[in-house]
């Protein structure tokens, strides 16, 4: 555990050493983890969000923050009585916390979607699954980004 955090810290400081830290000050209005929490609250309301059932697949290290492949799947029978209504994705440090909201239903057959997202920084991405019974489930993944999106061209 200890070893892993120190490795992550090393990578973050290495990225900062490459000039990333200096460039970031130019970016207007970065969202904060609190804003991400508020954006999540806007979707889930007062319902509790439980960790589990959602699987978020992201590369642990991304060379280009302009296109980061993302796959979210939720464990569900996907029947009319018990299915995934929506999947939401949030980031902590992009200019805007919301990334995408997928709406699906029993007609989807399985709750698994993929897309490509932008990441402005090394950060944690959160995926939330909204089930037909009104419960919310979540998963998080940390991504180290070496080339930030929003700043340089693809």
């Amino acid at each position, binding site marked *: 555990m200890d070893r892993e955090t120190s490795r992550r810290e090393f990578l973050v400081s290495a990225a900062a050493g490459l000039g990333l830290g200096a460039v970031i000050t130019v*970016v*207007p209005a970065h969202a904060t983890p609190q804003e991400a929490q508020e954006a999540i609250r806007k979707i889930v309301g007062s319902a509790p969000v439980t960790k589990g059932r959602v699987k978020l697949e992201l590369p642990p290290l991304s060379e280009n923050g*302009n*296109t*980061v492949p993302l*796959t979210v799947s939720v464990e569900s029978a996907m029947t009319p009585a018990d299915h995934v209504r929506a999947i939401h994705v949030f*980031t902590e440090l*992009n*200019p*805007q916390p*919301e*990334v*995408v*909201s*997928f*709406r*699906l*239903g029993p*007609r*989807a*057959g*399985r709750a*698994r*979607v*993929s*897309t*490509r*997202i*932008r*990441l402005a920084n090394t950060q944690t991405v959160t995926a939330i699954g909204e089930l037909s019974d009104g419960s919310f489930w979540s998963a998080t993944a940390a991504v180290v980004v070496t080339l930030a*999106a*929003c*700043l340089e061209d*693809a």
Partner: protein
Amino acid sequence: MANALINAPDRARRGEIIEIKTLISHQMETGYRRSQLGARIPRDIIRLFVCTYNGTEVFRAELHPAIAANPFFVFSTVATESGTLTFQWTGDNGFSATETATITVD
């Protein structure tokens, strides 16, 4: 105009879960970048993607600027009957694009 690619099977067995991949060319300008003169480049993104199967909506995605340029989606649906899959993208500055694919279910 926009160039869209659809990858969906043209034949499927009834009840089979089919995977659909869509890709559309669009810059997805975030609205957070600045030009060389320092002026903010206005946002120009696709806001909504909807897939309907014989008129019934089966998948919808609400996009934000954090979706990468040339939005790519992979999703699935149950092959219920022969017919048409319609894909529609709408966005800023009146952007609208529609593609269709036919599927035969037996």
